[in-house]
């Protein structure tokens, strides 16, 4: 996969760049931009940064207060109607060119970030869309692939833990941390439920002194169902034995005996079974079909007179007799016995009348079914109302006699329970009212429907009955609400009463043991669930330990990889020094801390070095080189296609400047990274031009002569003199590739000569608007015939230009590379033509 490359960038109104938009075109893998101090070099670096991130990191790293950067992005002299933007064409990883533009909407202000709008190929876009082009920003704050003096030292000036976070994100291991969190959450969620009803029962039962040795093994293992029954029976037997209670023969009898003994003991203190109650069953109003059925019956009944209705049953019964139904001659009447009175004609008449009432009969049957359903519903309501606690169903006298008295409850409990008692009493009163209302309505309804079933003809107003069921539904709703309140109040109270009663009667845990014994399947299922969860928790803990260790190894791997990369770039910058960068790695026993380590050796062979923190032992120059090495290693790690280096080597570091210009840049270009070097050092700039002529290095100069226009950029490689100089340098090389490049360059120089000649000619004729750009897109073959008539100083001059055109023009497309003598002659001719006509 290719990495993204910048083809050109245009800047208008951004920082030092003013109203005249400036463009830098990059045709090579390397570009060198020279600008003296305060001419806009840093503005150019930050323009790249702004384009990609919408921010400049200097504000975050350098400003003592961010307020200092208010209104810092928009050029102060930019006319109000002009906008600030940075635009670039980038070849994405898809191999296609994409136009990216970021326009400043609002500048930095006091305590406010700047706002900008990003567009890709003319459409509004987000940072995420940049990623689709292969432009993957790195970890903030150094997100953009732009290295400046103020960003070099970031990682050394920040704390070890911030460094750790930074590197973990650069090394992209946060996904492992998220995974770890997910597994840890899983481990926590697998914890057995200590509030599980079965478990709390068993825990309470295990607290019984005599049962504890028998029941406690259940905490560790799960017996078979048979084994569990034996354990529980053994516990019950032990309790009965300790209570000197006779032991029945069968386990079920022993359980019943324990229950009986419990009630007996409790009753001596308080009749706690008075609280017993059934759960409130669901009850729903009759369906609409029942009422429709009754309405249909009434409608059908209207169509049949009373006499017919009365006789219909007789008719149907008569016709049900086979002799009558099949009679073909007069027969005796089966009802009154009159001889021969049932003639076939009369039977046919009876059949006709019966058929006429068939629909009525069906409606009647359905109505009877509906009434039966209604009475069932009414009785279900009555039954549901029976869910009231036992003490409420008892007569007062009976209740008092059993000892279920409020005074007794108050006496049993601590005075602090009086509030709970009062709440419970209030809920009892509500429940009693709702209970009585519901029962009354239910009984009345059942009686009324019974009457209708006895005499269906008495049914004349189903709507009234329907209304009564609606009242019943309201009453049931009230009962359900009251029951809910009661259950809540009872829960708070009964727990205290039971505890006091059981303590007083020395039966603590008995009830729970009895409950567990009666629901052994549920108890065993709970034990299985619990045991499995405990085991799973242990396994998840072990898995977490393995994942933790694995994560460390992955991180170590990635650190080692990155560390190796930094080392390599360090060694290219500062080879053979006894003090050297050793590693960047998480601190042992403190994984969230990352250290940069330096090796201190006595000799350049770096044998047996002492290890120290780089921050403590490195000079400023060494830290600077380490920052550069780290930046480059990071860029390669993250497959950054291009990097911008703003004076990457300190002006005082002459020795390392040569290493940077030679080894580092060569390695970067070889790795396919586009490098844009900005420098204030003219010597560096020229050295880069000479060294990388073969790479067709792009050379730019920047200057700020007019504040209103802003910084201007010149592509010095386009200058005719520069082109001839570079052509001369390339032509000296013996390598065919260099000669081919020299041929191309001299052809470009000849084109430039022709354009300048044509412009010069128009100027001399008074056309002051003539410009080189008027001839954009024209090649030497097209320009040369127009220029020949202007070469009048010597008759040989047009011929010289023709020879240059014929011998160098095809060089770009021909396999044949110009020889050195051809290049030398062409160069000499071009120089003399320039001297003659464009002095």
């Amino acid at each position, binding site marked *: 996969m290719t990495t993204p490359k910048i083809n050109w960038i245009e800047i208008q109104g951004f920082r030092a760049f003013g109203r005249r938009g400036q463009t830098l075109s990059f045709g090579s893998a390397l570009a060198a931009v020279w600008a003296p101090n305060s001419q806009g070099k840093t503005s150019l670096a930050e323009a790249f940064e702004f384009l990609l991130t919408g921010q400049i990191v200097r504000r975050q790293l350098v400003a003592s207060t961010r307020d200092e950067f208010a209104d810092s992005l928009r050029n102060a002299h930019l006319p109000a109607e002009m906008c600030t933007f940075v635009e670039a064409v980038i070849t994405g990883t898809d191999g296609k060119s994409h136009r990216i533009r970021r326009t400043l909407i609002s500048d930095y202000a006091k305590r406010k970030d700047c706002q900008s709008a990003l567009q890709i190929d003319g459409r509004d876009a987000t940072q995420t869309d940049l990623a689709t082009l292969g432009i993957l920003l790195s970890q903030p704050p150094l997100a953009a692939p732009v290295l400046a003096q103020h960003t070099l030292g970031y990682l050394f000036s920040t704390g070890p833990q911030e460094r750790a976070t930074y590197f973990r994100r650069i090394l*992209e*291991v946060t*996904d*492992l941390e998220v*995974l770890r969190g*997910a*597994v840890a*959450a*899983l481990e926590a969620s*697998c914890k057995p439920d200590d509030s599980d009803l079965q478990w709390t029962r068993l825990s309470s039962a295990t607290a019984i002194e005599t049962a504890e040795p028998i029941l406690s*093994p259940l905490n560790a*293992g*799960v*017996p*078979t169902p*048979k*084994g569990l029954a034996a354990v529980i029976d053994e516990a019950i037997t032990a309790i009965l034995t300790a209570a000197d209670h006779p032991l029945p023969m069968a386990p079920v009898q022993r359980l019943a005996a324990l229950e009986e003994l419990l009630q007996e003991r409790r009753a001596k203190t308080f009749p706690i079974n008075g609280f017993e109650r059934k759960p409130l069953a669901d009850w729903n109003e009759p369906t609409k079909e029942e009422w429709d059925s009754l309405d249909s019956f009434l409608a059908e009944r209207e169509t049949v007179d009373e006499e017919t209705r009365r006789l219909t049953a007789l008719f149907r019964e008569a016709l049900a007799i086979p002799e009558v139904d099949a009679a073909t001659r007069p027969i005796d009447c089966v009802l009154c016995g009159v001889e021969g009175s049932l003639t076939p004609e009369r039977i046919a008449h009876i059949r006709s009348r019966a058929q006429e009432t068939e629909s009525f009969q069906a409606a009647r049957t359905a109505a009877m079914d509906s009434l039966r359903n209604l009475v069932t519903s009414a009785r279900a309501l009555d039954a549901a109302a029976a869910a009231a606690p036992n003490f409420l169903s008892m007569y007062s006298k009976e209740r008092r006699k059993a000892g279920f008295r409020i005074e007794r409850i108050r006496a049993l409990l601590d005075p602090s329970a009086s509030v709970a008692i009062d709440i419970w009493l209030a809920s009892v009163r509500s429940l009693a009212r709702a209970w009585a209302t519901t029962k009354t309505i239910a009984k009345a309804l059942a009686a009324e429907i019974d009457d209708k079933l006895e005499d269906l003809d008495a049914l004349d107003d189903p709507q009234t009955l329907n209304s009564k069921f609606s009242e019943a539904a309201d009453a049931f709703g009230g009962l359900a609400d009251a029951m809910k309140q009661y259950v809540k109040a009872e829960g708070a109270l009964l727990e205290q009463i039971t505890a006091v009663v059981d303590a007083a009667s020395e039966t603590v845990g008995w009830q729970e043991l009895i409950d567990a014994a009666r629901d052994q399947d549920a108890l065993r299922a709970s034990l299985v*669930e619990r*045991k*499995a*969860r405990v*085991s*799973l928790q242990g*396994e*998840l803990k*072990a*898995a*977490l330990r*393995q*994942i933790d*260790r*694995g*994560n460390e190894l*992955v991180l*170590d*791997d*990635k650190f*080692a*990889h990155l*560390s*190796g*990369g930094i*080392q*390599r770039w360090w*060694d290219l910058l500062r080879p053979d020094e006894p003090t*050297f960068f*050793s*590693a960047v790695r998480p601190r042992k026993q403190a994984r969230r801390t990352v250290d940069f*380590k330096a*090796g201190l050796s006595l000799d350049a*062979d*770096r*044998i047996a*070095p002492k*290890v120290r923190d780089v921050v403590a032992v490195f000079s400023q120059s060494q830290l600077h080189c380490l920052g550069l090495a780290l930046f480059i290693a990071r860029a*390669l790690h993250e497959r950054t296609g291009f990097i911008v280096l703003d004076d990457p080597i300190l002006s005082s570091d002459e020795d390392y400047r040569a290493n940077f210009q030679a080894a580092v840049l060569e*390695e*970067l270009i*070889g*790795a396919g990274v586009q490098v844009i070097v900005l420098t204030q050092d003219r010597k560096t700039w020229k050295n880069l031009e000479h060294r990388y002529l073969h790479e067709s290095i792009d050379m730019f100069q920047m200057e700020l002569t007019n504040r209103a226009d802003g910084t201007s950029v010149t592509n010095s490689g386009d200058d005719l003199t520069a082109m001839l100089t570079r052509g001369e340098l390339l032509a000296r090389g013996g390598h065919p590739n260099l000669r081919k490049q020299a041929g191309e360059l001299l052809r470009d120089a000849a084109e430039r000569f022709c354009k300048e000649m044509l412009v010069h000619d128009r100027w001399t004729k008074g056309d002051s608007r003539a410009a080189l750009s008027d001839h954009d897109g024209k090649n030497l073959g097209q320009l040369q015939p127009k220029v020949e008539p202007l070469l009048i100083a010597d008759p040989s001059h047009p011929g010289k230009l023709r020879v240059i055109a014929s011998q160098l023009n095809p060089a770009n497309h021909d396999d044949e590379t110009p020889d050195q003598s051809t290049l030398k002659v062409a160069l000499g001719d071009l120089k003399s033509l320039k001297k003659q006509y464009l002095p």
Partner: protein
Amino acid sequence: MQNLIAESDSDNPADATIGRNPAVAQTNFERLIQHLPEGSLSAKLVAAYAAPANATPDDAVAKVAATRLNELKRIHDDTENQLD
């Protein structure tokens, strides 16, 4: 050049990859699984998390745990392993 301090046990030695990127990058999860015991619960959890089938990563690991929980419950169906 010898460097005794920053020895790398990486499967991608630094020198071999300077300026280059591996043709097929290993994901962190793939790297992690290599460090986990084969067939272990930890390996199953990571594999499920990395490639959740019809679920979110969190749901995927929860499913692995639920499956294991059921296996652990089924152990108690085996009478030979039970406390009797």
